[in-house]
């Protein structure tokens, strides 16, 4: 039951207050697990959504990782084996051949929307 790439939809996930600043939560969207992160840079608040599946650890855990920066990139560290994923691109910093899917996040009227 792979998700269809061409049926892009906007999904209303939760209230903004359900998110945790500088950390992640997980949403179930069309049978798919999406990790949503909120990152405060001091000046602005950024939102990211990536697949919750840790392709190296083989478990649905990425939302429980620690977020931070490596050089200029905003990343999450897998809680299993500590690889870092660039939240903007989904690229694994330590492994060129590994990448996780990313999704656009929209905030409208204090609701969190994910585009899949």
């Amino acid at each position, binding site marked *: *039951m*792979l*998700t269809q790439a061409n049926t892009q939809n906007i999904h209303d*996930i*939760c209230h903004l207050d*359900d*998110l*945790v*600043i*500088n*950390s992640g*939560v*997980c*949403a*179930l*969207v069309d*049978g*798919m*697990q999406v990790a*949503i992160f909120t*990152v405060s*840079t*001091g000046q602005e608040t950024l939102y990211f959504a990536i*697949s919750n*599946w840790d392709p190296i*650890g*083989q*478990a*649905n*855990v990425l939302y*429980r*990782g*620690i*977020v*931070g*920066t*490596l*050089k200029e990139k*905003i*990343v999450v*560290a897998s*809680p*299993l084996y*500590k690889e*870092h994923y660039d939240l903007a691109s*989904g690229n694994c910093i330590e492994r060129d051949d590994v*990448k*996780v*899917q990313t999704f656009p996040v929209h905030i409208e009227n204090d609701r969190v929307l994910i585009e899949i």
Partner: protein
Amino acid sequence: MNHSSQQHIVVIGNGMVGHHFVEQLVNSEYNCRITVLSGESRLAYDRVYLSSYFSGKTAEDLALTDEKTYQDWGVEAVTNAWVTDIDRDSKVVTTKDGNTYSYDKLVLATGSYPFVPPIPGNDQPHCLVYRTIEDLEAISASAQQSKIGVVVGGGLLGLEAANALKQAGLETHVVEFAPQLMAVQLDPMGGDLLKQKIEALGVTVHTQKATEVIEKGQHSRYRMKFADGSHLETDLVLFSAGIRPSDQLAKEFGLVIGERGGIVIDNQCKTSDNDIYAIGECALWEKRIYGLVAPGYAMARAAVADISGNEGAFTGADMSTKLKLMGVEVGSIGDAHVRTPGAQVYTYHDQPAGVYKKLVVDANRSLVLGAVLIGDTSDYDTLLQYSLNGIALPESPQALILPSSGDAPLLGADALGDTATICSCHNVSKGDIVGAIDGGCCSLGDVKSSTKASTGCGGCAALLKNIVDSELEKRGVEVSKAICEHFDFTRQELYHLIQVGGIKSFDELLEKHGTGLGCDICKPAAGSIFASVWNDYVLARQHQPLQDTNDTYLGNMQKDGTYSIVPRVAGGEITPDKLILLGEVAKKYNLYTKITGGQRIDLFGARVEQLPAIWQALVEGGFETGHAYAKALRTVKSCVGSTWCRYGVQDSVTKAIDLENRYKGLRAPHKIKFAVSGCTRECAEAQGKDIGVIATENGWNLYVCGNGGMKPRHADLFATDLDDETLVKYIDRVLMFYAKTADRLQRTSVWMENLEGGLDYLKSVVIDDALGICDELEAQMQLITDSYQCEWKTTIESPEALKRFRQFVNSDEKDSNIQFVSEREQIRPATNAEKYAAGKAIPVAIV
């Protein structure tokens, strides 16, 4: 194995030098067969640290090798193999039980025996020598029936032996024939100051005493009568008046022997027989016997080189020494007695501080010839390098021994040439170290294991570190202590900044001292420091994003994303009702149960959304969090102790429970484990723990900084016979000092080894309050203890905190990837193959 083409090397004797020979020969990869014949009942052990036997080290601790190692090397090692015959013509040796061994090359490493002066009465019971572990066992047995002990001989070994007697609890005397102590290494001034210092430590020194007879005593077992008419009563006499080479075999079978003993050898360590070598204290080179281990090792290397067809020679050895005798620092380099014609002397004497330094230079004041250092040997390494490597002296040589005024010309690592010997025990030059770094070593530890530098006496440790740091820096390896890219500080510095600056949140810390947004290195480290300093609830809103997932969910994440739960079972004592509750909870939530190594019960397979309900049940049943997920105090293991055990001398279970309750919740740079044993049989394995407590008749012995795991280390004996109050006080101080100063993820063992001065320094901080911080450390620990809270209990009472315990923010569904199968009547995570077979493999978007 093809014996015919292989040379057979037979080594007689397995002391330190004999063992070094075998090790070097194996490492040379020369194609040969090696047989070791040891007259002793055990294989090689460390005689340099023999007196540590009395401070708690065992024969195993002192061992340099074992049968397994020799087997792995393909070396045949025979113990109790006393050689009685050498047939030099047919090249066969015979042992006392009639076994014969033919050899191509024979190596005599028979060592030496203690010289016992020919004094009437020297052969009575309780008249002993100090050389082997068996000797130590005899001394230990005799000491138990004695009050007073006398060492005959005030040389280096004699003072070591006196230290052993003192540690065995005897009133200790040293009797020396010469007018001063350590007459070989020290000048009269140095010898005199050493005497004063040793007497201040409670050992009475009698110089210029020639013992005439040892006869029955009036108050003690014996009376020693001296030539000057005086006498001394004692229960035990220990002879340590020098050594004599064990050259009987060589003498009996016709090898050339020196006038006063010793097997004559050439620069290749060959004896008068072309196929027989002699090395170590049995050998006589240029009419000299070398009674130190480093020259013996040098001989072993020369012999290995010759046998394996390489170049190498023994051309004499430096007899400089640096040591600590009963805590008194003593150093002697080269020409300490100013025998070189034209030599000039600088001296520095600080009588109030008990420091004496003498520097001997050549007539041109350009080279160091020798030195004597008493009370402060911090200049030893530098002076030795000047002396060994012929480095030109600075304009004012006296600056080298004057107290540091900040401008003393330090001999930097870069001033040394590549040929400069850094480690004389293993003959490692600066060039070898540079080569190791070029070969890929990028830390002090790498260099040590690759070159063996600083793994002998350890005297060159500081210098080696300087060289390694300097060389790494030259190669652009930043020897940065910064914790990560966001903070240019060590963990210790961050701790200080947080405490002194009153910083209570990560944002504030980052704003004041860091850059970027932090990462998975600095965030948990800061969270741990906040907990150590302020002991806030770890899931307080501002700390929550700092924690590793284990701390966030107060459980240990397993490979499938589920958690395991370990409730605290203090001291390993648990009631039947609590056992039943654990069973009931495990059954209700279908958890896998396993007994841990720390005497607790681990419950596996809890989904994140199940955790609050599980804790609710456990907390209601009286359980607390066990902190198994945290870098914090884990368990205090105990044996059953005097309450039940026939052998126990103290109530180890109560002590373990009290300690666990005192320190539970303490966050630290790494996990901390304790154990308490109720007697010396040590069933709780306390010597393998960060903090080990072992009951004695009089109180508790405290061991510190041991661990199991990847690199096991025995704990060091820290203090003995402590009462309850002092025990807690010392543990408070050790742990808080560790929490304050250790690096991130540094266990106590590595932390202590990296403290400059190691165990002795830690003792001075904790026992003698050398830094004047003990009150502060205790107060900080009291704060932590007083503000303890069970994090599970706090969490289940907080609706805000509970919000995080769900897999999905928008659904009550479960994570379909978590699947179990049954094995031995319990669950275990399903493998991928099993998930596919069950048709339950979840769709995963692949990009």
